[in-house]
C-alpha cells in the first residue's frame, strides 16, 4: 500500500477555478428557475390576451349560474376608471328580485352573506344556519319577538314545536275547520251508502296532493259535473298575513288538495230527501237546495196530480198529538210546501248536519238568496214560498298549516301517511290537529351523513316572495354563449 495522498497532492488535482465552471446541475437549476416562472407568466399573459378572467375564479359557479362561467363581467362589473371589479348586490338584483325578510329586520344582509358563489356545483340557495341564527339566536325585531321563538340556534337547538301544535294559554291548538269528521270511523270498515257493502278506506281515497288527479273511488259523477254556487276559495281560511310564500309551487305535490264532497264523500253520503226520488239534493247552499226542492216538487205534482190526496201515515199515531184526517186533499201549492218542509227538516236536522255546522236559521224572505242565473226565474216564481233556512258555517279549511315553513309531501312519497300522521287513526274530533309533531321530523332531519338535511333553508324561506318585483332581463342567448355583452 504505497499510494500517497497528502493534502497538498490532493489540492493539486483540483482546478481552483472549478466553481466558475457551470456544471450540468447548476445549469439545469438556473434554466429551470428561469423557465418555470416564465411559463407561468406566459400562461397568465395568454389568458389576459384572450380576455379570459376565469383563471382568477376562486371556484366553479353554482349550477344555476354555471352558464355564466365565461361571463365574469355579468357579476363582476368594473366601474369606469376603477381597478376593483367586485361582485355587488346590484349584479344579483339585476336578474333576481330579493325581497326583504321583514320590514323591521336589522340588519339587512347583502346577497353574498347567505348565497356564496364560486363554491362549486352546489345549491346556492342552501344558506348556512349561521345566516339565520345571526338574528334568530337572539331575536330583537320589535314586537315579533313576542310571537316568534327568540332563541333558535338550529333545528336541534331551540327550535319550537310546529306552531299549529303549540299550546295557547295551556290549551292545545285546534283545527278551525267546521266540517265534522271522525277519522277513526272512516279508517275502519264502513258501509258504502245506506245499502252498500262494507269498504275499507285508504288515506289516499280522500287526500291527494294538488297536482295529482283525485281518487274517484268514492266520487259521484253527477256531483262532479254539477255547478255549485259557492266558490271553493270561500271555504278556505285566508293565509296568515305574514306568511312567507314560496316563490312558486315547483311540483304541485307540496301540499294536499282540500277534500271535495263530490270526489270523496258523495258515493257514501247520499243527499237523498224523499223516497219518491232516486237522486239527492245539490251539494250547495241552503237557498239553492230550497229552490231545488220547490222546483222538484212542483214538477212532480204537475205530472202526478193525484198525489194531492194525502193519506195519513199510520206511524204518525205515536206522537200523541191530535191525528190529522185520514185523507186530506191539498192544493198543489200546499202539497209542495208540505213536502218541501218535510225534506228540509230531514236535510237540515240530519243529512247536512251530519257533516256541516248549521248554526242558526233565517227567513229566506229576509235575506237575498244567492242563486245562479239559470235559477233566477224559479226564485221569482217561488218568492211566495217561505222557509226557515239554516246558516251553514264556512268549512274554514286550512290550506297551509305552517305559514312560516314549507313542506313537500312529494318528497315524502316513500312513507305511509300514518307513519307521520299516526293520530289520524284515533282522532274522533275534527278539531284535532293531525300534524305530526316536530319530534317526528327530527327522527330523519338531523345533522350528519345518515340523516336528511336539517338546516334552516330546508323548511324556511328567507325572502318574502309576496313582495316580489319583476326584473327586466338583460342577457341575450347568443351574447351569453359567445361571451359578448
Amino acid at each position: 500500500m504505497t499510494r500517497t495522498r497528502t493534502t497538498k497532492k490532493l489540492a493539486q488535482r483540483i482546478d481552483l477555478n472549478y466553481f466558475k465552471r457551470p456544471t450540468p446541475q447548476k445549469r439545469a437549476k438556473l434554466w429551470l428557475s428561469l423557465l418555470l416562472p416564465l411559463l407561468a407568466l406566459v400562461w397568465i399573459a395568454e389568458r389576459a390576451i384572450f380576455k379570459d378572467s376565469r383563471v382568477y375564479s376562486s371556484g366553479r359557479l353554482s349550477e344555476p349560474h354555471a352558464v355564466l362561467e365565461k361571463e365574469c363581467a355579468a357579476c363582476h362589473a368594473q366601474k369606469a376608471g376603477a381597478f376593483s371589479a367586485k361582485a355587488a348586490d346590484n349584479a344579483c338584483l339585476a336578474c333576481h328580485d330579493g325581497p326583504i325578510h321583514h320590514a323591521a329586520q336589522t340588519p339587512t344582509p347583502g346577497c353574498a352573506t347567505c348565497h356564496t358563489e364560486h363554491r362549486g356545483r352546489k345549491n346556492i340557495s342552501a344558506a348556512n344556519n349561521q345566516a339565520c341564527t345571526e338574528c334568530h339566536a337572539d331575536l330583537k325585531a320589535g314586537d315579533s319577538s313576542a310571537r316568534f321563538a327568540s332563541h333558535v340556534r338550529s333545528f336541534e337547538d331551540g327550535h319550537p314545536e310546529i306552531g299549529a301544535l303549540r299550546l295557547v294559554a295551556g290549551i292545545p291548538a285546534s283545527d278551525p275547520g267546521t266540517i265534522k269528521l271522525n277519522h277513526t270511523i272512516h279508517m275502519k270498515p264502513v258501509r258504502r251508502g245506506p245499502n252498500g257493502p262494507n269498504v275499507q278506506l285508504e288515506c289516499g281515497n280522500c287526500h291527494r296532493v294538488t297536482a295529482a288527479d283525485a281518487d274517484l273511488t268514492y266520487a259521484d259523477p253527477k256531483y262532479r259535473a254539477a255547478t255549485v254556487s259557492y266558490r271553493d276559495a270561500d271555504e278556505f281560511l285566508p293565509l296568515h298575513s305574514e306568511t312567507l310564500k314560496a316563490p312558486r309551487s315547483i311540483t304541485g305535490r307540496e301540499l294536499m288538495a282540500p277534500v271535495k264532497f263530490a270526489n270523496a264523500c258523495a258515493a257514501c253520503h247520499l243527499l237523498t230527501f224523499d223516497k219518491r226520488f232516486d237522486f239527492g239534493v245539490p251539494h250547495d247552499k241552503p237557498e239553492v237546495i230550497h229552490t231545488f226542492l220547490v222546483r222538484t216538487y212542483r214538477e212532480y205534482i204537475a205530472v202526478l196530480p193525484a198525489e194531492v190526496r194525502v193519506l195519513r201515515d199510520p206511524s204518525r199515531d205515536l206522537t200523541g198529538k191530535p191525528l190529522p184526517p185520514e185523507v186530506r186533499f191539498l192544493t198543489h201549492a200546499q202539497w209542495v210546501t208540505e213536502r218541501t218542509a218535510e225534506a228540509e227538516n230531514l236535510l237540515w236536522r240530519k243529512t247536512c248536519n251530519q257533516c256541516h255546522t248549521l248554526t242558526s236559521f233565517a227567513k229566506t224572505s229576509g235575506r237575498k238568496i244567492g242563486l245562479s242565473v239559470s235559477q233566477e226565474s224559479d226564485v221569482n216564481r217561488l218568492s211566495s214560498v217561505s222557509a226557515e233556512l239554516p246558516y251553514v258555517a264556512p268549512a274554514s279549511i286550512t290550506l297551509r298549516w305552517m305559514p312560516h315553513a314549507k313542506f313537500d309531501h312529494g318528497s315524502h312519497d316513500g312513507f305511509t301517511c300514518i307513519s307521520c300522521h299516526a293520530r289520524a287513526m284515533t282522532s274522533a274530533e275534527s278539531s284535532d290537529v293531525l300534524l305530526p309533531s316536530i319530534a317526528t321530523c327530527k327522527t330523519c332531519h338531523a345533522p350528519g351523513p345518515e340523516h336528511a338535511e336539517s338546516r334552516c333553508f330546508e323548511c324556511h324561506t328567507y325572502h318574502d316572495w309576496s313582495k316580489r318585483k319583476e326584473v327586466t332581463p338583460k342577457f341575450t342567448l347568443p351574447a351569453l354563449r359567445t361571451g359578448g355583452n
Partner: protein
Amino acid sequence: MDKTQRGWALASLAILAPSAFVYVLYVFEAPQGPRGGSVIGLTFGVIGFAFMIFAALLGARKRVPTWRVGRAQAWMCGHLWLGFLALPMILFHGGFHFGGTLTRVLMWLLIITVFSGVFGTALQHYIPRVMTSDVPLETIYDEIGRVRTLLREEGDRAIESICGNLGLSKTSSEEAQRAGGFTALRTMSAAAVPLRTSAAVSAGASAAVAAAPEIILLSEEESAPLCRFYLNEMCPFLERPKQRGQRLGDAAKASSAFAGLRTLLPATAHVALADLEDICDEARQLTRQERLHHWLHGWLLLHIPLSLALILLGAIHAVMALRY
C-alpha cells in the same frame, strides 16, 4: 434537534396553535364557511405569503453572502420553519378549498414546494453522515470527472511501471504531479515520501507512513494476467464506473479479484497491485459520492423553480384577488 432548531420549532408552534384556534372559531362563526376574501381569510393569506417571501429571500441572501442581515444559520432556520408554516396558513386562508384554476395551481405549487423542502431537509440531515462514512475520499463534486480522468492516467502509469510500455500513459510529469504522482514519484524518491493511503484515511489515521519499495519490471509471462485484468476490467471500470454488472463496481468482488491476482503475481508486483486496488476503491467512492450528491441536491431542481413560480403567481393572485 439542536437548541437553535428547538427555539424555531417552539416559535412556529406558538404561531401555528393560535392560528389554528382562530381558524376553528372562524369556521364555526362564518355564515358561509371560511373564505379567503374575509378579513380573517385575508389575514391568513397575507401571513402565509409573507412567510413564502421570507423563505424565498434565502436565495438572495445566499447570492450576496456579504449582506449583514442576520446570520446565515438564522436565515436557514427561518427558511425551514416559516416556509413550512406557510402551508397551514395558506390552507387556513383558503378554508382548505383549492378554489379556481389559479388558486388550485398555487395550492399544488405550494404543497410540492413545501414537501420537496421537507424532503430536502431530511436528506441534508441524513446524507452528509452517509457521505462521511461511505466516502472518506470525497472530493469536490464539480471535479469528480477530472479526478476520475487523473485516476485513469494514474492507473495507466502504475501498470506500465511493472508491465512495461503498453501505450497507455500519455500524461506529462506535471499532470502526474497534479494527479498525486504516485508511481512516478515513487521511482524518483520513493524512500523519502511519507505515504497516506486511502485505507489509512478511512481508518482515521492522520499520516500512515510506509516506505515504498523499488519497482521491478515483470516479464511478459509474469505480467500477462495483470495486463489482461487491467485492460479488460479495470480500464472499462475507470472509464465507465456507473455501468452495471462490473466486478470492480462492488467492493467485495473487487477485493476478491485483486486477491486472486495477488496469487498469480510475484511479490514484487504486489505493491503496484495495491495501488491499482486503491485506485479502484477511490473510483468506486467517487461514484457513490456522485449518487449521494444527486440525492442531496437533486430536489433543488424541483424546489427552487417551483418556489419562484409560486412567488410570482402568488403575487398575481394577491393583486387580482383585490380586484375581484
